[in-house]
Every structure is written in structure tokens, then in C-alpha cells.
């Protein structure tokens, strides 16, 4: 059932949610809009641009302890570290929910499931706020999403006139989370999206397959890549990871190690390099090709969804102006 709120009741509800669960919401961090842990509704931005980073870190943290290893002499005790906190992500943009759906396809829906991601995902409620416009670089409408797309959310919030908000539950989780919302008398109609960006052509995976050997295309875009990996860092669907051990405490007769999982990037020069020194993907353009081929060919063929939701963050973040939509347009032209 659709619910209504104003800024005051919304913040009251957020205050309550912050007590019941870990609350993540868009916040101003020294001039940057970021999804961040929130203690009270007053900190939350209700009008904001696309946050500079996606919210994937709250389901798939950039650094995460997956195992605690305690060694006493020749004895070892292993403790799995599975998160069990309930969390609500408030103010999620629809593209970021779409990004999580893409990660779900691999981490949840392909056997075996990823235990850590699953634990977080099951305990997370996604409350989205529709975008009032498409921002610099946004092309979600070309990727099967949209500024007010409720598909991958539990609740979609849309702004109406006069400070009224319309809250639409999408899933049973969404119905449940809305139970605590204080009732108000106000009503309204959603404000239309103010500005759409022009569409970008999306070629089928078979077309991308034929482009693999088009070295000119890949060198044109990839030769200036600095291998800085920011594109994968800001991406809501990039999910490659590394696993390393970190010794955290050494005492007589006892060593404590954390096995941590950290984000990785296929655009990193050493991504495919093996200990003997062999690197089957030695150049920047081959690595960039892998990133784009993963998004538009491998990921959909292997797991279903495309590996891009059109959030546009990589376009804005790239220091050498490599633009994924230009690659897509070139792919359509070839």
C-alpha cells in the first residue's frame, strides 16, 4: 500500500530505523555526497545528486574479514566471520539497486552462493529515492533502468510538490520496513523527471564477441588508460576480489591472523600475473578490453544481466576521459 510522508515524518522514521538497524544513507561528507552510516535522520540528505560512490561496499565491503585464524603452536582454530547485523540502505538510487541485482546474479544465484554476501543481502532492506533528473554521464535508461525504476528496490520514494514524499513498497520487506512510518494526512502526485539524457546504443553480446579482435577499437580507447582502477572502484557491478592473510597479533605461543577479502580490478597491471612472472594480459588496452567485454559480453553470457547499469560514475571519475558510452557508440558503428 502506498504511504505518504513529509520531511519531518521521514526523519522521525529514519531516527527509529537508525536504532533498529544499521542505517546507511546519503550524507554530505566535506562537499561530497556519499552513502554513509547514519546515526540520526537529521544527517540524511533528501535532495542530492548521484552519490559519488555506489552502495556496493555495504553488501560487499572493500575490505572484509572472512576468517579469523588463531594459531597456538601446532593447533589452529578457524572462526568464520559472517555478518549478522540488519541494515537499511536509505536513499539508494535506482541504478545502485540495479547494480546489486547484477552482483546477486553471480554471488547469490550461481552455485555455490557467496556466504558473506548472502548474509548481508538477506539482512538488508533497500529504500530508494527516485532521481529527479539524469546527471552528468547518466545513461540508466539505455541499460534497462530509469530514474524512477522501482524494480530492484524494496521501497521506492518519489518526491511530490510541497515537500510531500510518496513511498511505494515493492517487496514484502518493503511493506515491513514501512510499518514504522508515522502517518500523515498529506497526499500528492510524483513530480515528473526533469531531464533525460540521450540514449546510448546497446549491442547484443554476439556483436561484442565479434569485436574482441578489433585491436584498433580497443587501442583507441585503452592506450591512454593509466591502470588507475578508479573505474572499477566506483562501479556498482564490478565485483572482482583478492584474498590475503594479515597477521594482526603476535604473542608468545599465539598468532592471530585475519583472512581478508579486498576489492580487485581487472584493469590492474598485475591482475593476471602469476608468481613465475607470466602475464597473459600485459597491456593496458587488453585489460580495458577485458573490462568492457566482461560488462557487455562475458557477464551477461555467464550470469544473465549486463555488467553495466548506466550510472555514469566511471565516465566522471576517469582521469583520462575514457568514456564507456563512447566505446558503446563505437561498437555500434563498427
Amino acid at each position, binding site marked *: 500500500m502506498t504511504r505518504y510522508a513529509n520531511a519531518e515524518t521521514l526523519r522521525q522514521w529514519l531516527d527509529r530505523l537508525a536504532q533498529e538497524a544499521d542505517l546507511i544513507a546519503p550524507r554530505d561528507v566535506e562537499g561530497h555526497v556519499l552513502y554513509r552510516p547514519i546515526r540520526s535522520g537529521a544527517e540524511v540528505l533528501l535532495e542530492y545528486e548521484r552519490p559519488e560512490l555506489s552502495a556496493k561496499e555495504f553488501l560487499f565491503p572493500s575490505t572484509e574479514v572472512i*576468517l579469523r585464524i588463531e594459531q597456538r603452536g601446532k593447533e589452529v582454530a578457524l572462526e568464520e566471520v559472517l555478518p549478522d547485523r540488519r541494515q537499511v540502505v536509505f536513499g539508494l538510487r535506482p541504478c545502485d539497486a540495479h547494480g546489486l541485482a547484477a552482483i546477486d546474479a553471480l*554471488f547469490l544465484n*550461481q552455485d*555455490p552462493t557467496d556466504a558473506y554476501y548472502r548474509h548481508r543481502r538477506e539482512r538488508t532492506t533497500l529504500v530508494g529515492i527516485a532521481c529527479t533528473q539524469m546527471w552528468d554521464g547518466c545513461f540508466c535508461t539505455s541499460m534497462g533502468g530509469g530514474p524512477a525504476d522501482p524494480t530492484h528496490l524494496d521501497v521506492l520514494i518519489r518526491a511530490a510538490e510541497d515537500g510531500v514524499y510518496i513511498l511505494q513498497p515493492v517487496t514484502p520487506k518493503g511493506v515491513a520496513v514501512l510499518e514504522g512510518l508515522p502517518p500523515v494526512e498529506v497526499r500528492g502526485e510524483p513530480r515528473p523527471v526533469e531531464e533525460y539524457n540521450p540514449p546510448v546504443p546497446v549491442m547484443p553480446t554476439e556483436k561484442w564477441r565479434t569485436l574482441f579482435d578489433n585491436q584498433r577499437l580497443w587501442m583507441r580507447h585503452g592506450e591512454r588508460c593509466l591502470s588507475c582502477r578508479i573505474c572499477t572502484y566506483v562501479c556498482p557491478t564490478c565485483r572482482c*576480489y583478492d584474498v590475503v592473510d594479515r597477521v594482526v597479533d603476535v604473542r608468545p605461543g599465539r598468532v592471530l591472523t585475519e583472512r581478508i577479502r579486498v576489492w580487485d580490478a581487472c584493469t590492474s597491471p598485475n*591482475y593476471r600475473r602469476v608468481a613465475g612472472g607470466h602475464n*597473459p*594480459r600485459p597491456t593496458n588496452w587488453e585489460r580495458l578490453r577485458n573490462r568492457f*567485454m566482461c560488462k557487455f559480453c562475458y557477464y551477461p553470457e555467464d550470469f544473465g544481466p549486463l555488467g553495466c547499469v548506466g550510472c555514469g560514475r566511471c565516465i566522471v571519475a576517469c582521469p583520462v576521459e575514457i568514456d564507456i558510452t563512447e566505446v558503446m557508440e563505437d561498437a555500434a558503428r563498427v
Partner: protein
Amino acid sequence: MALANPMRPYPGRLVGVRDLATGIKLFQVELLEPEGQAAFAAYKPGQFAFVSAFGAGEAPFGITSTSRRGRLLEFAVNALGHVTFSLHSLDVGDPVGVRGPLGNWFPMDQLQGKNIVILGGGIGGAPLRPVIHTILDHREDYGHLTILWAARSPDLLVFTEEFDEWRSAWATELHVTVDQAGPGWTGHVGLITQLLEKVAPSPENAVAITCGPPIMIHFVFLTLKKLGFAPEQMLTTLEARMHCGIGKCGRCNLGEKFICKDGPVFWQYEIARFLEGFL
């Protein structure tokens, strides 16, 4: 019901460590808990596992033993990186972790009745040893066995102590070569491809199985083709840097395929169809 966590290693203990070649050690691991023992009760030739040196990390290794020959898991480890150097510093009695068994395996049933050519280069021989053992332990199920065993130098040849067993088996021949001879070496000197051309096994009812550095696999396939072997008569097993072994972490992709999940064992025609090569 709690689902199993595939990132959790089974606790194990080193019960044997010995030098296999310069810089290469053979580790024998006993799994300590029933859960791990059950998981590895019937692993197949060609499968791999992650071995943890706790505090340093874990890395994937082809299992070089067979479940038929005993309950101990054997891994050949070349000291090259952080994890492998840490493993080399361990001794009998030290704890390790094991995750697996992972990946596909050599189609030993499908290979029955065929003449088999094994081509192992350096430590690339390790994942082929379970194939050799399986054939020797079911000798009547397979045809002629030709083993070509190579290394850069004599001190890098692995499993030399088993050469007599291999040579003395029925309808089995062993040819050994080194790229560069050392003091006292009286055997063949030259690349494995040169040896292969000399031995020239017949492609008739045969399947060739190779593992070694990627460049060697590439040229062994070319030489086999010259000898008349078809793509569906050539098998290999590949390796890559990987962190999960279950198709999630992304590290080991060759185009749309993952070495960990779609491999590590591939027919030559499968590799040729991949968008990206392994070289």
C-alpha cells in the same frame, strides 16, 4: 539451515615434506576432520585445491596424488611467491588448510581403451601424475602409455624416483629430456617438442595430455597437430592466479571462461574457441 561456506578451509596437517627438485617440495597433507575427509573422499585426477599457509595466505595447486593410492593429499609446490615460500618454511606436524576439491578433471572413463601420450614440463608434470597413476593402477583398461617428461635442467625433473615404476609397467615407455644438460647427464637434451618429434607417437586411437608453461603447451599442441593429432585428441590443464576457485573472484577468466570452474582441464578445441588465449 546454514549453507556451507566454500571459502572456509578444512583443517589439515603436514605429515610428509620432501624435496622433489630444486625449489620444489612435495607436501603430504592429512585432513583432520570428517567433513574435510568426506569432501576429498573421491577427488578426481586433474582437480585442484587451495592450500593455506596460515598467516601468509592460500594458493591453488593441482592435486598430484590419487584417492585410490591413499588418503593423504599430495601437492608439488614451487617456491615462487609469498604463499609458496611460506609453505616451504613449514615442516612435518605443521598445520595447513585445504579448500576443495575444485574444478573439473581428466575424463579417465572416456580415455579407457585409448593409447595415451603424457607430456609433462617441469612442475607441470604434477597434475599429470594422477593420470599416470590411474592408468598404472588400471593398466588393462588403457592402451599403450607413452610418457614424455621434461624440465629446463636435470635438477628440475620431478618424480624421478618413480621413473623405474613407470618404465617397468606393461606397455609403458618413458622418455626424458632436459633443455640444458648438467654434470653427469647422459640422457636426451632438447625441448620436449624435439623429443616429441623423435618419439613420434601414432595418433591412431590416441589421446595426448600435456601440462607445462603456457608457451610449452602451445608448441606441444602444434607439434602434435603435425603428427596427425586432431583437436579432440589433445587435452591440457591450465593454471592462473585465482582467489576463490568457484567462479566468483574473476581472476582466472580467459574471456568468458573461468579456468577454476570451466577447467582447469580443457580439450584443445575448447581453448581454441575461447575469445582470449592462455599465452
